[in-house]
């Protein structure tokens, strides 16, 4: 191992992390991403790369929730190191420089590192009033996004606002808010990491994957990595047995609620939401909304503010799925009602596809470049 690589192991040891623990972490990452175990050595080597890749983090019409989520990144010491392997040259919430000096930092990256830097975008991008609904340093968000994302090696749209427009784009979309994909025509190598906010575990896993292989993991048609959004919440829910047994919470605080019965009747959107919350949970695996007695609101799905509301109305509608599709009957009923709202055809095709185990086969950046999230 060269000296330039040794610094990393030295850093680990200074922070009380043994080489062995680090490799263990890489194995966890590899398995979270459903990669062959032999790849973990490659993951480890990539993380130790000497030059830190540059990352710029843009905040537009956001609430900072994804930044906060990022600050909760788990696997305490090691995650810290993973983040340290990036050079975060622009991030308004944490950077020391302000004003002119901050703008200069961004200019330097865009000018000197063209095609070599990563971008994270948090928040939607407004278009009305010549972009005056969001300006930074006097520049419209949409101009900044087009320039910075346009020159990037890859872009992560973090959180549902950046990925799909999110809350600002909810009806009646007063500011003409767009997702990154729609605001930056022709954007290359975009990955959507939705949820409100995106889970720190998935952020970390995605970054490690990209830094290791320099391409994104396989995505679904909404541009989301299958490793985190490939399965329905409902299918991995700890309360699934109660659903199958017809044991439901009927009122807040009732015996069933305290016992942990299914929240379907209280409005749970787990049956139509693709995310790995039940598996990775939140805040280092401490808990998750359903574990805390509240229904899933479907926050990782496009347009959930309009299509999953009212949140406390339970999913309903006639069963409708194509022939040969085997899902338990109640689940079919649950998914079908809202399927119409999502444009039936698209939703069902992606439910079906999610039933097939996604192959971990790497794809080229071009072919993994997600299509616009139109279902129809």
């Amino acid at each position, binding site marked *: 191992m060269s000296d330039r690589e040794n*610094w990393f192991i030295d850093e680990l040891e*200074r922070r009380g992390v043994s080489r062995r623990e680090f490799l263990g972490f890489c194995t966890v990452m590899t398995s979270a991403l459903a990669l062959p175990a032999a790849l973990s050595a490659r993951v480890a080597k990539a993380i130790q790369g000497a030059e*830190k890749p540059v990352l710029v983090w843009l*905040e537009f*019409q*956001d*609430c*900072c*929730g994804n930044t*906060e*989520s990022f600050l*909760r990144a788990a696997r*305490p010491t090691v995650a810290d190191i993973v983040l340290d392997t*990036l*050079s*975060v*040259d622009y991030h*308004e*919430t944490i*950077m020391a*420089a*302000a*004003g*002119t*000096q*901050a*703008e200069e*930092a961004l200019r330097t990256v865009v000018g000197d590192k063209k095609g070599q830097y990563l971008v994270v975008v948090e928040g939607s991008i*407004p278009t009305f009033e*010549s972009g*005056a*609904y*969001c*300006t930074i340093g*006097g520049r*419209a968000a949409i101009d900044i996004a087009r320039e910075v994302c346009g020159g990037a090696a890859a872009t992560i749209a973090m959180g549902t606002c950046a990925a799909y427009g999110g*809350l*600002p784009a*909810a009806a*009646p979309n*007063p*500011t003409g808010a767009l997702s990154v994909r729609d605001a930056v025509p022709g954007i290359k190598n975009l990955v959507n990491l939705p949820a409100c*906010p995106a889970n720190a575990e998935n952020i970390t896993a995605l970054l490690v994957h990209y830094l290791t292989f320099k391409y994104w993991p396989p995505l679904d048609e909404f541009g989301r990595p299958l490793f985190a959004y490939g399965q329905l919440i409902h299918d991995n829910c700890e309360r699934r047995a109660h659903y199958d047994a017809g044991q439901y919470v009927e*009122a807040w*605080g009732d015996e069933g609620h305290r*016992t*942990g019965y299914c929240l379907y009747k209280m409005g749970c959107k787990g049956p139509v939401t693709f995310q790995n919350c039940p598996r990775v949970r*939140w*805040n280092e695996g*401490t*808990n*998750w*909304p359903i*574990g*805390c*007695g509240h229904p899933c609101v479907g926050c990782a799905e496009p347009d959930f*503010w309009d299509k999953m509301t*009212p*949140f*406390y109305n339970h999913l309903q509608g006639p069963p409708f799925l194509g022939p040969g599709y085997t899902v338990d009957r109640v689940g079919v009923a649950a998914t079908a009602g809202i399927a119409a709202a999502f444009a039936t055809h698209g939703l069902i095709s992606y439910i079906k596809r999610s039933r097939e185990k996604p192959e971990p086969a790497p794809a080229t950046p071009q072919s993994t470049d997600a299509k616009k999230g139109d279902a129809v």
Partner: protein
Amino acid sequence: MTHIVVDPVTRIEGHLRIEAEVDGGKVQDAWSSSTMFRGIELILQGRDPRDAWVFTQRICGVCTTVHAIASIRAVENAIGAVPPPNARLLRNLIIAMQAVQDHVVHFYHLHALDWVDIVSALSANPARTSSLAESISDWPLSSAKYFAGVRDRLKGFVERGQLGPFANAYWGHPAYKLPPEANLMAVAHYLEALDWQREVIKVHAILGGKNPHLQSFLVGGMATPVDPDKQSSLNADTLASVRALITKAHDFVARVYIPDVLAVASFYKDWAGYGAGVGNYLVYGEYPEDEGPTAPLFLPPGVIRGRDLTKVERLDPSQITEMVSHSWYEYDGGDGKALHPFQGETRPKYTGPKPPYDRLDTAAKYSWLKSPRYAGLPMEVGPLSRMLVAYASGHARVKELVGTVLQKLNVGPEALFSTLGRVAARAIETLVLAEKQGEWLDQLAANMARHDLRTHDNAKWDPSSWPSDATGAGFHEAPRGALGHWVHIRNGAIANYQCIVPSTWNAGPRDASSQRGPYEEALIGTPVADPAKPVEILRTIHSFDPCLACGVHVLDARKQEVARVRLP
């Protein structure tokens, strides 16, 4: 006269622009502008009021609980739902942990770099740093070896040549006064606080499912079940986890945060003479100690005018108005009018320069924030306001701690009206809340022991139990200050929704009579050694803990329903 523009103001939540005139090394005039806008109230119209908290919560992901709390209180007030004691206690625990975690993150990760020179820390002597640390606290991470490790880690980081978020800053600026050892100690605690915040906020995950954006709130109570006999409810096991985290939170606040604030402040006492601001303070009060709208509050409400600590006025919400003379909105009856939120009109009309622009026309309209006023006066809200009102109202623990801090810094109470006063008040409040949390947890455990398992007022859940026309207000003390939501519900749907938010109070522009907002007023007289590197401006602005996504939220683009709502 030099015109300074700071945009983006970093290490805040949201998008803030400051323009200032500097002459003779001091700020002569200043303008605060918010440059981002979403329109969440309009999006809320016509929706189920029980959903509103999920929407308003997304106003801010930093203070991720506050707009959920204000929203459920407003709707409960409208429909007459009364959350049972367990729900109140769960909420108090969540609100207090939000404030404790948020204040510490603000000090170390958003504000500290205005006072702490990271580059200077590289030349610190670890043994002397250890002596310094041990002279102010018995916190165990204080050995020379420990600080040598932190210094070496920092050195390794700098020597790799990629400074990332620490690049291009004001290091070496003459306004930095801490000796290298104090800088190194602060850097060590910056890193420790990063781990600490991730850990203690697990209280929110236990009681709220996740953080950010907890998901256990309900109109009428909480979704978190409590039952000592159930695995899927809050039980003895999870209560013990919460207690451990509360203890950890208190430990760091008492033994690291407070001593650090005192140590840093002792080198910057001149900042007790800058940043005073408007001198009027508004507090809604927080932490109900009983059920119902008249319950006593642990931190009292009140209004202080003109820095007069001898008199705390009773809060009268009907005195609250908003103006748009310098905001990108228009009013039907003329932009010079002052309207109560119940009569609020919010039609955006952008008249600023077309982006990209270099300068705002500050003589005209220049911000997406409105100008809230109380009895016609600009008001500062936040931890300083809360501590002043509590102090002047005779709150025993606050009085004691304020007295101790003033004595340790050897300054009088007038020092509180300043940039440094805000920093100190935030720290004092954090300790008061960190101490208090355990009591609410004890009360919750006692209720559970009596088998009081209620967490929700089911009687008002179904919209058919609501009046066909109802209005309500929800008040809350967010980490950054007084927050109010006003809702009008008609036939089970939201007819109108209005928020007046802490950062609107503090960061708002001038009003019709040219009274500056609190940020603007606080900047007057601030020294600026080098207009190209205005770190001093950041000190005063950051002392308010800006949260701009919160501040701008109002939109009524299609001239919707004008709210006409009664006060509770």
